[in-house]
């Protein structure tokens, strides 16, 4: 596809689906928060204020303040970096590792395929969130280990996808031609097959990102990974939970809404990308 053709296709796909466009705009805003968060935030997210505890949303504090008088808006903005960062790093790592393993399994078949597929089946034999809990518990309670756990539980999806995509292309004409031209297995795989499966894999990344965010936030919610007072959406919801029965709804609603917004946009973007790059898969 030429670039002009691609641009036309993109304009068509996005024009047809306004929601995708909206999700791109909101995601851009979230990414800005992630990059420039501390500069945008009206207050220091860690600054406590004993005179302004649990203040409802007001002009001075649009999202209110928490039990220690910290500004919730500032904390929600600054948390974007950690939440999106964890999810993006985890999704990209499992994308890279899954692509490599899946491509090897799909291209060579035989015992590498059997071993890799068996390992992926074993991961899938666990309820994935439970496995992630077990991994973090075993490796130690840290942000890095939450990322590692998220990578592991996402791996099978990328690996199986890449394996299937490589497998159907292995015997195709252009691959035969590349082999006839004297290319070894690795150059054929890396230069000829992998570039062709990247577009559908990118759709997979985007569809997967929302889930990666939910997993990392879920782990933080139960007290794994991020520790207070670090601003992070999952842990903020968990801290706010104790004020529900006294009616201080803003303590948990705003960080939770930020999570929902991010996941929702990634899901919409994934659907939009799929329509754009891989229209046949649309359901």
């Amino acid at each position, binding site marked *: 596809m030429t670039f002009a053709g691609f641009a036309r296709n993109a304009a068509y796909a996005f024009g047809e689906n306004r929601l995708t466009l909206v999700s791109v705009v909101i995601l851009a805003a979230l990414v800005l928060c992630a990059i420039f968060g501390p500069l945008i935030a009206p207050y220091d997210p860690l600054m406590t204020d004993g005179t302004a505890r649990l203040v409802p949303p007001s002009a001075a504090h649009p999202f209110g303040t928490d039990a220690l008088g910290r500004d919730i808006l500032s904390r929600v903005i600054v948390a974007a970096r950690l939440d999106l960062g964890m999810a993006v790093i985890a999704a990209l790592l499992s994308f890279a590792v899954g692509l490599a393993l899946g491509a090897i399994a799909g291209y060579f078949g035989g015992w590498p395929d059997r071993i890799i597929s068996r390992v992926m089946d074993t991961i899938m034999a666990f309820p994935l969130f*439970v*496995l992630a809990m077990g991994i973090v518990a*075993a490796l130690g309670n840290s942000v890095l280990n939450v990322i590692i756990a998220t990578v592991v539980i996402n791996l099978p999806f990328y690996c199986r996808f890449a394996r299937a995509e490589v497998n159907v292309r292995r015997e195709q004409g252009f691959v035969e031609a590349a082999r006839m031209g004297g290319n070894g297995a690795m150059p054929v795989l890396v230069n000829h097959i992998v570039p062709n499966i990247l577009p559908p894999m990118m759709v997979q990344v985007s569809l997967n990102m929302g889930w990666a965010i939910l997993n990392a*936030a*879920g782990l933080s919610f139960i007290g794994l990974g991020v520790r207070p007072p670090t601003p992070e959406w999952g842990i903020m919801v968990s801290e706010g939970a104790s004020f529900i029965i006294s009616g201080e709804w803003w303590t*948990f609603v705003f960080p*939770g809404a930020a999570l929902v917004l991010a996941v929702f946009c990634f899901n919409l973007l994934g659907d939009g990308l799929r329509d754009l790059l891989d229209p046949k898969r649309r359901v």
Partner: protein
Amino acid sequence: MHFFWKRLLGTIPSLIGVVLVTFVLSHALPGDPAAFFAGPAANAESIAEVRAKLGLDRSLPVQFFHYADDLRRGQLGNSLTTGQPVLNDLIERLPASLELTFFALLFAVAVAIPLGVWAATRPDSMVDHACRALVSIGAAFPTFFIGLLFVYLFYFLFDIAPQPLGRLNEIMYTAPPRITGAYTVDSILAGEWSVLRASLAQLVLPSVSLGMFALAPIARITRAAMLQALGSDFIRTARASGLPARKILFSYALRNAMLPVTNVLGMVFSFLLGGSVLIEQVYGWQGVGAYAVNAVISSDYAAVQGFVLAMALLYVLLNLVIDLIATAIDPRVRFES
């Protein structure tokens, strides 16, 4: 029955894999586990003693053999926090989690399948759009956030839900005598209808909030599978033969659409078992998930590993059941692979 035994044998590699992973996890503790269990006051000698006692001085295959043998005898170690054998703790709390998961699945299936069917019969109608909106929203809301929102709305604001603290209001009701451990079943068996009502009331919010996340995949697959079934030749033939629309929809199309739906149930159970941990935390539900969260926070390794193992075994079992149901629905599955 031939297929049944073959499928049963097929779970063995999964079981071996699961045990292998939990073994690796139990040996991946940060630092030296012997030093950890020997305590802060230990010297080199007492650490070596603990190491020998735990069997950590032996080779890994020997350790794995002993680990597997312990599992076979139901030895999961003792919990540091409760002081009880982990197996007993899990058995005591598992019925509560299963009850919650079952009602969540019931809610998800009862809403998602009719919704998917309805949406598929009227593509691009209001119902179809509502179905899509619900699917997108359900997939984007973290389970724990939905749970907390429900508590705020239905307990605090509208005051129509009971206090979200556990499985039964222990001040007003006494738990029924334990037979299965599930309060709803036990109260029916004991004939205590007021307790049944009370425990069902406690179940509504947790199971609906847990089921919300499972709703999305089931509704989406039902809709897609029904669209495909309704567009196929055998439905056209059935219509041309003048069969009643109701019969075409339910006996022909829905039965064929159920296979993809049962296949997605595996993923749904993965969500439900994982999500139940979060929901138990939100609603103070005394199940295995809340137990595991406490164990993780207090570095109670034996309890966490026992929980992960129990959940994995349960999940392997559920997948086996799903496969058997899929075969009952569509005999063609038997001849594949």
